[in-house]
């Protein structure tokens, strides 16, 4: 039966494919899909907060990958554990949704529904124009993040067993 399966890590890539660097989260999870990790369930998502909350509701471990704009060098990778404290404000102004990823995390915290293990990987991005090309620095960062997330997912799964 399904219940006998090994616990899995839910990996969610957030972004918009048509807005330059904003596609980073989506492209990163597409790389991860190609790695065929048996430790993980992989999902692409628009970043609409209320729906994100629903997706990770019963998950034991979740990794979210998204583009961020915090003023660091383009392509910089941020590893954040929001179970400890809120996401730095102003970092995720990339979503056009009224209710976005940081809102979803804080709402989940308020409702006592944060996944027990939650990691956010932010890829520093600059260019969010509709129809624009992705920056080369972000392309390079996507490769690195995919490898980092694969390792984290394996470690998390081991910890869950």
């Amino acid at each position, binding site marked *: 039966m399904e219940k006998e399966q090994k616990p899995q890590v839910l990996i969610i890539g957030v972004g918009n494919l048509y807005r330059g660097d904003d596609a980073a989260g989506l492209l990163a999870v597409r790389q991860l899909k190609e790695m065929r990790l048996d430790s993980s369930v992989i999902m692409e998502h*628009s970043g609409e*907060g209320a729906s994100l909350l629903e997706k990770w509701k019963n998950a034991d471990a979740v990794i979210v990958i998204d583009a961020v704009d915090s003023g660091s060098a383009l392509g910089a990778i941020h590893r954040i554990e929001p179970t400890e404290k809120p996401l730095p404000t102003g970092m995720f102004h990339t979503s056009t949704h*009224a*209710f976005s990823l940081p809102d979803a995390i804080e*709402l989940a915290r*308020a*409702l006592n529904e944060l996944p027990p293990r939650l990691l956010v990987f932010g890829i520093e991005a600059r260019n969010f124009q*509709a129809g624009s090309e992705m920056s080369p620095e972000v392309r390079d960062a996507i490769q690195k993040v995919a490898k980092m997330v694969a390792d984290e997912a394996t470690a998390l799964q081991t910890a869950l067993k």
Partner: protein
Amino acid sequence: MKSRTIKVDYLARVEGEGSLYVKIRGDELVDVKLKIFEPPRLFEAFLRGRRYSEAPDITARICGICPIAYQMSAVHAMEDAFGVKVEGPLRDLRRLIYCGEWIESHALHVYMLHAPDFLGFPDAIHLAKEHPRIVQRGLQLKKAGNEIVSVLGGREIHPINVCVGGFYRVPTRSELAPLAERLKWARDAALETVKWVAQFPFPDFEQDYIFVSLQHPDEYPFNEGRLVSNRGLNISVHDYDDNFVEEHVAHSNALHSVLKSGEAYFMGPMARYNLNFDRLSPVAKEAALEAGLGPQCRNPFRSIIVRSIEILHACDEALRLIERYEQPDQPSVPIHPHAARGYACTEAPRGTLYHRYRIDESGTIRDAKIVPPTSQNQKRIEQDLWQYIPSHLHESHDQLRWQCEQAIRNYDPCISCATHFLKLDLERE
């Protein structure tokens, strides 16, 4: 004369981004501009040269919140062009998926975006800390809507199962059964929602609006009907272009839409309610009356009650549609494209969405026009602020700014549809 400047950089809790600019000189309001500065997305241009059958899926990408509205206006316009009528269970399924979108979109707006304004919370997160069970109810209600869209649309976001003539695949009766179970809970939750929002404090503000919405002979409007107003407009959607004009204003990249007379008008839940109260399901009508709302409502701040009544109506209607559903033999009716023009209006959660297409003999789109509800409400939003602000100039800077944002949120604007992106400047010189 002393002038004041209030600046608000970012208008939160609306879909997409843009800005509002308000300028007050002394005791006089001198300027209000709802600015939408994101570049136009040119969907109408890149529909040209595509197959008629691609319109529902291409236009659905205009909005992540109301893709069903785009799909519905697109398929109805194409069927209008080719003289096809979709009836029976297929028509019911379309109404059902539209119920899903209304529930999902309205629940998000009522609970996450608008309710915090009335209760003095900066956002839904603070609301959740104080009232976790209420916010949970809102999230579960939204989920009930999402599930309808997922089952009928093939997936929750950017559904892909709607086609000209019907659906690519229709559900079995047993696939709809679990939806009904959740909808029974949702209908109760929607009734609780109406009661909850009805006791919020509302500013005393009524306007003599021109309401415009679809009207169907015996249904609360989703997909079909004539376009009517409370000022005697009563037209076929074929005559839309003869009665409404889009004009470019320098401060917005979304075209302003006005009546031929130059007047602004009001679309969405408030308009539908005022023009179609009799056609609400009995349970929704009763809840409205109990909430203290008569068949007419002219205070836009009370739109949160009207939106909640529409959630209740949509839950009740969805249950009725599921109950009588019989799986049709074919998932769609055959389409034979030919050179033609097609027109449709359907009721998106935020208001009437107009599509018009010109198709050539091979079935290729030669020309397209799309008028989303938010661009039609733009001018009306500005006029509300022109009326509201002068009698509230004594309020503190922050209070007035808050009220301006709240007044904008009355319309649940989707700037992503109108073009994209909103920021807010409130200036007192």
